[in-house]
C-alpha cells in the first residue's frame, strides 16, 4: 500500500477551498479556537486541509497507520486523528500536538506519486496527484502521510503545495514570520507573559540563583560578582559570575583584559570532595602583567586551592566544523531520502557510520569529561577548562562532568539547571550554532546536539542512575529545531536581554544581590517574549511529559550538600610539592607543567612573579595526578565493579570501548521509513509497564495506609509481634524502596487523566490490554497490564514492501 496504485476511478469531489479558507479566517475571530477539529493557537489559521489522510506511525508510536485529517497552518503541519476527542477550548494552548510538526522544523517536502517521487519546492509544480506526502524534518523525524483514495485530489495537491510554499526553507528574515505566526497574537502574548516559570530548577539569572548553587554544592570561598552586570567587562559573559571571595570587584575588573573576550576563569561546580571546576577562555598574551594583576590572576585561577590543573580543550577536541561535518554525514546516512537516488547500501551501514566520525567525537567528549571527573575526585584542586573562546567544548565538557559526578544533574530539574548554567548563561552561541537565520552557515555546528548524544550514551549505559529518560533527551533534541525558545534564540545573555528590550536599569546597587523583581510576575523585565524551552507544557501533552522521568528511580541523594568535606583519604598535598600555586596542563591524557602555561609566569613578564615565588613548580607531583587519571579506568578495566556502585559520588564513568558507544537509534533512526512499517506490540501500551507497576504499587500502598487506619487500636500489640510487617510498613513510610511516592502519585494522577480522555495518544490500531483499562481505579487491577487478548489473530498491517534484496 505504500505506493499501491489507486484504482482508476477516483472520486472527484470539488471542495470549495476558498469558502473553507474564509471560514477559517472568520474562525479566528470567533471565541473558540477549534477549527475543523484542529485546536488552533490564538491567531493561527488553517490554510489548507486534507481529509481521510493516514499517518504512518513510527515503531515507538505503535506502528501501522492512523487515519485523520491533515492541516497546514501558518505555523505547523497538524494531523488530527479521526476519533480524537473534541479539543477543550479552555485548555492552555499547546504549540504542537502529538502528531504535529512546526513548519520551521521541516526541511524537505517530498511528494510520492504512482510512479515517481518529487521534491516539492515553493516554485515547483506537481504534474501528478500525490499519493503520499513525506516530510523530512530537521530533527531527523520523517513524517509520512498517505492520501486515501477518498481524499479529494484537489486537497491532496493543494495541501502539498501549501506546505511547500509555507514551510520556508529558512532564509534570513523568514524566521520572524514564523515566530509571529506562532506567538504573535495578543492572546498568545498575554498567555505567555502569564506563564509561571518552573520553580524547581535554577535559572541562574540572579545572584541568589548562583548563591543557591554555591550552597547546594557546599562551595565556600566563592562569591557572586555583579561586576559584569551591564556587560561592560565582557559582552558574552552573563551578568553574574562566581569568583573567589578574596578578589574584590575592583581587582577583578583588571583581570578581564587578560582573557579572550574577557571570559575570565569562573567557578562552575564543586565536587563533593572539595575540588572546584572552573572554565575560562584562552589567555591574552600580548598584555603587560602588572604585579597586582598577577596576584589577582593567580587568585582567580586557583580559588582557594593549592593546585590547579588547566585542561586544554582547544586542540584534541573536535572543532565546531568537524562536528558540523560529522552531523551532516550522520543525517544523510540515517535519514536516507526517497527522492534521492543515491542511498547508502545497507551492508555498508556500519562502515559508513564509522566514516561519519560522529561516534568518535562522542567518545572524545566523554573521555575528556571522564578524565576531568577523575581529577576532581582526587579532591582539593581546581580544574580549569580552557578553550580559546570558552563557548563550545567548555560547555560540553563542564556539563558532562557534572552529569557524571552530580546525581542532581541527572534529574530533569537538575539537568535543566545545568544547561541553563553551562550553556544558556555561559554564552554558548546557540543562535549561530543552530543557524536559525541561515545567515551563519560557517558558524553552524550542532555542539549542543553532540552534548545531548553524550548524555544519551551515559544514560544508555546507566539508565538506572538517571531520573530523566531517553524520551526527555529526545524532546530536548527536537526542541532545538523549533526557533521559538528564548533559550536558543540568542548567543549570550546580553543578546537575550536586548531582544526583550529590557536592559537593566542604569543603576544597580552594588550589594543589591536580592533586589531582583519577583519571578513570574507579569511585568518581570527579564521575562523575554519567547518562552524558555523548559516550559514543556507549551510543547507536550501531559502524557508525553510524564515520560520524561523514570517511574522507578533511585532516590536522588537527598543531601548533596557535603561542604566539600567528603573523606578523600588523600593527602591534599600529595600532588602539590609544598609550593602553593603549582599549575599543570592536562593535554592528550598526560600532565606537564610548561613554564609558559600561565603567560604572567613565563619569561617575558615573570620578573615580578619570580620575586615572590622562588621555586618553579617541579614535576615531582605529576605521578600523583597521573594516578588519578588512571584510576578512572579508561586505560584499565575496573578492578572491582562493586565498589564503583557503592558511592553515590563516584562518577558514572562511561565505557568507551568500540561496542559501548552506540548510535542513538531512537533519535537518528526513527525516520528510517522502513522502520515504521511494522507494528510493534510493545508500544501499543501507552504507558511503560514499569510506570504502570509503579502506579499499582502506589495504589496498594494507599490501600495499605487506609486499612492500617481502620485497624483497631487494640491490634497494635499484635502488630508488634508481626515484625516483618512492621518493617515493611516502615519501609513504605520511609521510602527506602525504589521510588518516591510523590512521583508515583503524580503518575497516578496523569494516568487517571489519560484514561478519562482516551485521547489521540491512546488510540491504538488494535485494542490492547492497556486500552481496555477501565477508568475505574479499582477495576483495573489485573486487566490493565497483563491481561490476555481475547480477540482474533492479530496481524500487523504491513504496508511497506518486504526487503527485496537478500
Amino acid at each position: 500500500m505504500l505506493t499501491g496504485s489507486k484504482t482508476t476511478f477516483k472520486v472527484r469531489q470539488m471542495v470549495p477551498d476558498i469558502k473553507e479558507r474564509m471560514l477559517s479566517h472568520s474562525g479566528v475571530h470567533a471565541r473558540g479556537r477549534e477549527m475543523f477539529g484542529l485546536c488552533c493557537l490564538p491567531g493561527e489559521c488553517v490554510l489548507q486541509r486534507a481529509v481521510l489522510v493516514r499517518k504512518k506511525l513510527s515503531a515507538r508510536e505503535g506502528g501501522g497507520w492512523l487515519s485523520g485529517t491533515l492541516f497546514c497552518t501558518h505555523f505547523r503541519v497538524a494531523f488530527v486523528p479521526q476519533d480524537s476527542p473534541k479539543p477543550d477550548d479552555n485548555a492552555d494552548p499547546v504549540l504542537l500536538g502529538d502528531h504535529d510538526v512546526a513548519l520551521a522544523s521541516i526541511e524537505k517536502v517530498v511528494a510520492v506519486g504512482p510512479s515517481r517521487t518529487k521534491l516539492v519546492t515553493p516554485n515547483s509544480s506537481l504534474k501528478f496527484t500525490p499519493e503520499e506526502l513525506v516530510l523530512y524534518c530537521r530533527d531527523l523525524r520523517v513524517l509520512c502521510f498517505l492520501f486515501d483514495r477518498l481524499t479529494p485530489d484537489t486537497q491532496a495537491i493543494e495541501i502539498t503545495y501549501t506546505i511547500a510554499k509555507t514551510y520556508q526553507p529558512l532564509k534570513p528574515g523568514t524566521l520572524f514570520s514564523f515566530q509571529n505566526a506562532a506567538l504573535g497574537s495578543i492572546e498568545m502574548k498575554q498567555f505567555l507573559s502569564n506563564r509561571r516559570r518552573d520553580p524547581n530548577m535554577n535559572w541562574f539569572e540572579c545572584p541568589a540563583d548562583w548563591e543557591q548553587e554555591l550552597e547546594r554544592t557546599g562551595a565556600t570561598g566563592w562569591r557572586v560578582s555583579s561586576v559584569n552586570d551591564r556587560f561592560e567587562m565582557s559582552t558574552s559573559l552573563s551578568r553574574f559570575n562566581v569568583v573567589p571571595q578574596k578578589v574584590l570587584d575592583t581587582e577583578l575588573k583588571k583581570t578581564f583584559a587578560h582573557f579572550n573576550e574577557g571570559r575570565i576563569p569562573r567557578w562552575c561546580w564543586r565536587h563533593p570532595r572539595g575540588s572546584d571546576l572552573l572554565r575560562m577562555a584562552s589567555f591574552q598574551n600580548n598584555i603587560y602583567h602588572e604585579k597586582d594583576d598577577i596576584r589577582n590572576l593567580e587568585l582567580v585561577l586557583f580559588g582557594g586551592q593549592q593546585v590547579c590543573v588547566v585542561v586544554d580543550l582547544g586542540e584534541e577536541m573536535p572543532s565546531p566544523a568537524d562536528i558540523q561535518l560529522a552531523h551532516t554525514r550522520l543525517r544523510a546516512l540515517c535519514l536516507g531520502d526517497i527522492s534521492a537516488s543515491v542511498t547508502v547500501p545497507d551492508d555498508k551501514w556500519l562502515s559508513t557510520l564509522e566514516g561519519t566520525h560522529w561516534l568518535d567525537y562522542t567518545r572524545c567528549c566523554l573521555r575528556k569529561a571522564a578524565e576531568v571527573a577523575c581529577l576532581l575526585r582526587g579532591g582539593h584542586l581546581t580544574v580549569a577548562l580552557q578553550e580559546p573562546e570558552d563557548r563550545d567544548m567548555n560547555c560540553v565538557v563542564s556539563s558532562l562532568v557534572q552529569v557524571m559526578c552530580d546525581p542532581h544533574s541527572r534529574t530533569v530539574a537538575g539537568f535543566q539547571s545545568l544547561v541553563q548554567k553551562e550553556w544558556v548563561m555561559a554564552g554558548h552561541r546557540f543562535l549561530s550554532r543552530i543557524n536559525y537565520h541561515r545567515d551563519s552557515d560557517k558558524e553552524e555546528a550542532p555542539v549542543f546536539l553532540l552534548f545531548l548524544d553524550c548524555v544519551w550514551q551515559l544514560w544508555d549505559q546507566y539508565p538506572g542512575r538517571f531520573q530523566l529518560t531517553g524520551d526527555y533527551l529526545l524532546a530536548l533534541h527536537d526542541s532545538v529545531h523549533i526557533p521559538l525558545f528564548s533559550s536558543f534564540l540568542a548567543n549570550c545573555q546580553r543578546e537575550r536581554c536586548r531582544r526583550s528590550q529590557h536592559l537593566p536599569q542604569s543603576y544597580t546597587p552594588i550589594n543589591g544581590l536580592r533586589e531582583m523583581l519577583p519571578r513570574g510576575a507579569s511585568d518581570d523585565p527579564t521575562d523575554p517574549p519567547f518562552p524558555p524551552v523548559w516550559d514543556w507544557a507549551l510543547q507536550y501533552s501531559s502524557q508525553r511529559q510524564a515520560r520524561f522521568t523514570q517511574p522507578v528511580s533511585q532516590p536522588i541523594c537527598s543531601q548533596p550538600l557535603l561542604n566539600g568535606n567528603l573523606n578523600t583519604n588523600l593527602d591534599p598535598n600529595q600532588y602539590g610539592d609544598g609550593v602553593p600555586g603549582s599549575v599543570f596542563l592536562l593535554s592528550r591524557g598526560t600532565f606537564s607543567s610548561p613554564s609558559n602555561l600561565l603567560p604572567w609566569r613565563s619569561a617575558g613578564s615573570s620578573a615580578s612573579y619570580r620575586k615572590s615565588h622562588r621555586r618553579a613548580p617541579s614535576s615531582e607531583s605529576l605521578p600523583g595526578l597521573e594516578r588519578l587519571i588512571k584510576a578512572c579506568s579508561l586505560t584499565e578495566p575496573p578492578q572491582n565493579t562493586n565498589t564503583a556502585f557503592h558511592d553515590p559520588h563516584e562518577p558514572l564513568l562511561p565505557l568507551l570501548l568500540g561496542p559501548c558507544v552506540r548510535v542513538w537509534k531512537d533519535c537518528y533512526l526513527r525516520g528510517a521509513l522502513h522502520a515504521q512499517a511494522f507494528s510493534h506490540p510493545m508500544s501499543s501500551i501507552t504507558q511503560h509497564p514499569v510506570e504502570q507497576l509503579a502506579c499499582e504499587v502506589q495504589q496498594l500502598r494507599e490501600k495499605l495506609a487506609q486499612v492500617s487506619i481502620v485497624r483497631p487500636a487494640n491490634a497494635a500489640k499484635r502488630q508488634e509481634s508481626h515484625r516483618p510487617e512492621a518493617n515493611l510498613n516502615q519501609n513504605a513510610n520511609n521510602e527506602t524502596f525504589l521510588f518516591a511516592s510523590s512521583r508515583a502519585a503524580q503518575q497516578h494522577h496523569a494516568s487517571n487523566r489519560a484514561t478519562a480522555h482516551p485521547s489521540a495518544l491512546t488510540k491504538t490500531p488494535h485494542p490492547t490490554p492497556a486500552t481496555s483499562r477501565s477508568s475505574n481505579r479499582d477495576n483495573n487491577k489485573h486487566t490493565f497490564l497483563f491481561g490476555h487478548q481475547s480477540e482474533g489473530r492479530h496481524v500487523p498491517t504491513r504496508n511497506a514492501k518486504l526487503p527485496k534484496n537478500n
Partner: protein
Amino acid sequence: MEKQSSGSDSPVLPAIPNRKPRTLGVNPGSRQESVDSLDSPTGSHVEWCKQLIAATISSQISGVVPPEAAARECKVSRRPNLRVFRDVQKQMQTDEVPLVPGESVRTTAKDVMYICPFTGAVTGTLTVTDYKLYFVSVERDPPFVLDVNLGAISRLETISVQSHGENTQGVEIVCKDMRSPRFAYKMEDQSKQEIVGMLTKYAFPLSNDLPLFAYQYKEEYPVDGWKVYDPVAEYKRQGLPNESWTISKINSNYEVCDTYPALLVIPTSIQEDELKRVASFRAKHRIPVLSWIHPETQATIVRCSQPLVGPSDRRCKEDERYLQTIMDANAQSHKLTIFDARQSTVAETNKAKDGGYENENFYSNVELNFLEIPNIHVMRESLRKMKEVVYPTIDEMRWHSAIDATHWLEYIRLLLAGAVRIADKLESSKSSVVVHCSDGWDRTAQLTSLAMLMLDSHYRTLRGFQVLLEKEWISFGHKFASRVGHGDENHANSERSPLFVQFIDCVWQMMRQFPSAFEFNELFLITILDHLYSCLFGTFLYNSEKERVEKEVYSKTVSLWSYINSQLEDFSNPFYVDYENHVLYPLASLRHLELWVSYYVRWNPRMRPQMPVHQNLKELLFLRAELQKRVEELQREVSSSHSLSSSSEHTSSPSHGGTPLHTTV
C-alpha cells in the same frame, strides 16, 4: 556453602557466592539439598551474569538502604539477598574446586601462570577435571577465578612464552565460545607435564575412547526435561491431525529417513509406496513434512531437502503430486511457494552433483524463491573473523568497519529477511510454503524455526521455545555433533559451523526488537549456547534422533531443560506480555541489527553489560506481591475483628493477585 562459590569466571568480578536458588514450587524444602547444588553445574556464564546482576542490585540498594535494613527486608521477603552472603565469601575455601555431581579432579598443578590479555599475568593453581578447567589465583583480592568447560575447547596449541622464563611451556586453549585463554608453566614436575595430556584427553573424549561427560553427570533435578517435547502433544496443539494431515508412524524405525524423527506429519492421502518414491527423490530421503500449520488458514510450513533433479532435470511424478497435495490441503490459496535457502548459483551447481531444485515448469502453481544464504563454510569463516575482532583486544577506532568486514550481521539479516518472507507468505498470502536448502538440516532449520517464532506466540514462551528447539533442530536432525564437534579433536573438520549460534543470535535480535514478546531473557539464550558446547547435558548431543536412541541419551544423560525448568525465574523476562496472536516481523535491516555484544564480547572485562533495568521491574513486581499479601493479611485481620462494621467495605480489595507475570522474583 563451598559449593555455592563455584566459579566466578570473569576475571574482574569478585566471587560472590551464588544466590541461593529459590525453592521451586514443586516440593519446597525437601529439594533444598539438591537445589542448592543446582547452581554449581550451571556453567560459568550463569554465575557470571548473575553476579553482575547481583552486584548491580546490591549496589542499587546499598546506596540507599543500610545493610541492616536490607537484611531485615530479606526476612520479610524470604528473598535471598546477596549481601547476606557477602561475608560468607571470605570463609570460602579458595583452593577447593567446586565440582558437579559425577565430576572428578584429574590433575592439579600449582604455580601456573594465566596470561590474561586484559589484566596481565596472574599465577595460581590450575585444576583439570573431566568436565572443566579451573584456575584460581589468590594473588588478587578477591581471588581470581577462571573456569572453562572442556567441551568448549576447540583446540590446544602450544605457544612460545619465552618472555616468561626458561624452560617454560605455554598453552593456548582455543575455545568455541569466543575466547582463547593462555597459560604458561615451568616444565618442572610431573603434574605440570600432565596438564596438556589431561586437557587433551578430557576435552576430546571421543577421540580418546572416553564417554562424553554427560554420561557421568549425576545431578538430579526436580523436573525431567526429556518430557518437555512430546511430538504428539505439540502437533495436537497445532490442531493435528486433521482431515488433510496425519501423524504418521512410517518412520518409527527410522527406515524411511534415518535423520528424521520417528513421528512425521504428512498428507493423509499419500500412500506408503508413493512416499517411498518421494523419499528416494529427495536428498538423504528427507521428504517434505509438516512443521507448522496456521491455526486459521491451514497454510503450512513444510520442510524437506533438495530434490535429486540432477543434471538431466529428472522428474518424479510422486514428488510433484506430493507437493500438489500439500497445496490442496490449504483451501485458501492455489499457490505453493518454495523457498530454497541457497544462493541460486549454488543450487544450480548442485544439479551437477545430482541435487538441484524444483523446476517450476513441472510443478504446477509452484513459485520458487532463492533466499541467497551462503553455506555453512561461509558462516564458519565469518564467526572466525568475528573472534579476531572481539578477542582479546578491540580496536576502538575501527570497530564498526571491522564488524562490517566479518559480514556476520549481514548473514543475520539474510536469515531474518528470509524468515520474514516465509512468515509473511503464510500470514498475508495465506499460502503454504516449502522450505529446503541442500540437506534440509541447516539453513532449513534456521528458517523454519525463525518463521515459526514469528508466527506462533507459543514458541516465544520458555516452554514453547524448548519445544521449538527440540522439534525443528534436535528431532529433525540438525547435525549438532558434526557442527559443534562434541568431544572431537579434529578442529579443522569442515563439517563444523556455528549455525545454531547464528540462529540464537537471530532470536536475540528479535528479542531486542520486541522486548516484551518473549517470555525468556538473554541469560536463557546464553545458557543454551554455553551448554551447546559443554557436553554436560544430553540435549544437543549427536546428529539425529536415531543416534540418540541408540546411545541411550534419554535414559543416561540429563536434559538441559531439566536444569532450566528447575529455576525458570532466572531465565524469564519480567517485561513479558503474551501477545498471543501477534505476528512479529523483525526489521531485517542492518541499521536495526546489533552485534550481540553481551555474548560475543562477554569475556572482555571492560565490557560491563548494560545496567539491567529490568531489575527495577522485578523489584516492583516483588514489592507489589508483598504489598498485596500485606493488604490481604490486614484485611483479614480487620474483617475478623470488625466483622460487623467494615468488612464489606474492604472485601473487594484484595483481588489484585493473579497477574500472569512472575511475581515470584
